[in-house]
């Protein structure tokens, strides 16, 4: 599909058009922070952000999500019956999503929606009703290592459109039919613009300073990796908090609970995290991941071995670097992967 051009002074118009049928969200600056906000126009959009602190996975997989409701009343004809929660009432557009985050959703699609038996309606519904327009990274940050994990600063996977910031205008790469429909009114890009975007891409890829290698991890057997002596050291500083998993765009574990108040009840799922001992605690009192070492190992093994083994080499990490930035004790995934790969 041919590339298009969107001048930044035409953005208000573009967003207004999108808003006729959808709610539009984008990273916008509030105070010192850039966070995902609902936007009415181009005002407030942040073109210089590296990335938002929290990944946008909340849009598809909210931290707390009600799945069903029920009434306890036995004599009520509606009592004791689970009623599914209404699905997303209106479509959504997510503008300016970084390619690493978009890629993460493609990874999660493989997990939430696999086949008839494994089909998470809550996830799928939101994915289907959302248009994702990515914004290529022209200035990757020192903790980004996307290009080492099947992703990259101008990667085009998991999104419908990709914007490349050319200064006063955006080059729009049209990637899906949904994206084509949304960008139908835009003028085509000139060859010079495409050349400039290609230049920016090459420059951005060259600017990625962090790299990890996965060749030996891929070649090694699961148990060999599992029994590496490095795990005895890696976990020592870990606090077993949930920061890395909650800021991670691909971490997707959850815990389902029923909450009851009076005669009303709901079934709700919340993000959970493998760093917590409670995550694997059995009703018998046995805990298969009873030690901190087991739990820390699980997170890295899951991302860099278990997911690749089960999902045709796809990696459960997109190299966004959030966990490196946010970990209170500086456990650096790049170092851990290097050790796994040594």
């Amino acid at each position, binding site marked *: 599909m041919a590339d298009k051009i969107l001048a930044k002074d035409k953005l208000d118009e573009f967003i207004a058009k999108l808003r006729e049928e959808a709610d539009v969200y984008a990273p916008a600056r509030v105070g010192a922070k850039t966070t995902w906000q609902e936007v009415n126009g181009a005002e407030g959009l942040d073109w210089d952000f590296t990335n938002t602190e*929290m990944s946008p996975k909340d849009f598809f997989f909210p931290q707390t999500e009600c799945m069903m409701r029920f009434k306890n009343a036995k004599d009520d004809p509606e009592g004791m019956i689970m009623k599914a929660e209404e699905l997303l009432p209106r479509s959504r557009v997510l503008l300016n999503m970084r390619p690493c985050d978009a890629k993460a959703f493609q990874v999660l699609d493989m997990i939430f929606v696999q086949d008839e038996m494994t089909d998470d309606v809550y996830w799928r519904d939101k994915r289907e009703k959302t248009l994702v327009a990515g914004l290529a990274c022209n*200035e990757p940050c020192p903790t980004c290592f996307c290009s080492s994990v099947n992703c990259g600063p101008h990667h085009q996977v998991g999104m419908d459109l990709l914007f490349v910031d050319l200064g006063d205008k955006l080059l729009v790469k049209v990637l899906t039919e949904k994206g084509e429909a949304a960008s139908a009114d835009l003028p085509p890009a000139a060859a010079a613009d495409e050349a400039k975007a290609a230049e920016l891409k090459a420059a951005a890829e060259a600017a990625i300073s962090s790299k990890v290698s996965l060749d030996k991890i891929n070649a090694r057997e699961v148990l060999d990796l599992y029994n590496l002596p490095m795990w005895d050291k890696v976990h020592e*500083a870990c*606090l077993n908090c949930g920061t890395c998993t*909650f800021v991670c765009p691909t971490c997707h574990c959850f815990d389902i609970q029923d909450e009851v108040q009076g005669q009303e009840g709901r079934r709700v799922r919340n993000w*959970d995290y493998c760093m917590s001992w409670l995550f694997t605690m059995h009703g018998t009192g046995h805990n298969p991941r009873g030690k901190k070492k087991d739990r820390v190992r699980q997170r890295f093994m899951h991302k860099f071995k278990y997911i690749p083994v089960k999902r045709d080499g796809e990696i459960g990490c997109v190299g966004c670097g959030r966990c490196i930035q946010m970990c209170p004790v500086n456990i650096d995934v790049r170092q851990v992967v290097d050790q796994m790969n040594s």
Partner: protein
Amino acid sequence: MQQRTEKIREAAKRLLAEGAVDVVLGYRAGTVPMREQPFAARSVEEADELVWSSFCCNNLANFLVRRDEKTAIVAQGCVSRNIVGLLQENQIDRKRLKIIGVPCLGMVSRSKVLDKIGNKTVFAVEEQGEELVVKGKGFEERLNRKELLRDNCFTCQHRNPVISDEMVCEPVQDAAGGDIDKMAAPWEALAPEERWSTFKEAFADCIRCYACRDACPLCYCHVCFVDESKPQWCGKTQDEADVQTFHILRAFHCAGRCTDCGACESACPMGIKMRVLTSKIEKDVRQMYGYTPGMDEKATPTMSVYRPNDPQDFIK
């Protein structure tokens, strides 16, 4: 800082070489600017990685509980007070512990530095005496270290270790200079209805990762109340009530024990200032019961004792 680093290494190497301890808990240089990593050095070679800087923001006493080895720990004022607290509460064995005391000049707040430079991406931060040199793409700024101290370090009253087996340098002035009574419990100045909305707003960004709890050396319960399920005292959701229950009870559990080390705030990925709660409790305990936590190994923690004339004008 460099002098402290060298002395810490020297002491650590000696203790490890003598076999006096199996492990030395300290910090090593982090992989991102302004973040040093808690590190367990088990050999003389590893001891060479130990560092001391303005970014040793974790509380190492946190790593002492349920540790079987003979341990040496690098401890500044607040950490030493938490060690005293753990001794009072019978969580650690003094005989198996060596304390390498570090007179502290306060730790720098990462978020204050980032705010100061407008949240630009930082590549490196160097310490040059009382100045921090912050470097990023296309900029280099020199900032005054003292202005960027963490809030708790600014009002710290005990910068020198209260117990130690050896010190890495001469003691510094104990108080950092900030007035704790002026800074503590900031919401006392608000009207009741303002407090409630301020409280809600202050904790609205919480993602319940529990980094504040897990970074805290006071939180050593085998099962935390938020993980209890029968009965479930605190829901698992992001509902305001659940988030607030967690923060109120977490703060209350620190009553009479919190040394205001600031590890919770430094650990929070969302920049939440949970010291607004703990500083209120700390102030109340100080004013009502005249107790400062973690000063005396022989003292009983203030919530485990009583006096016949304790204040009770609120009781009918």
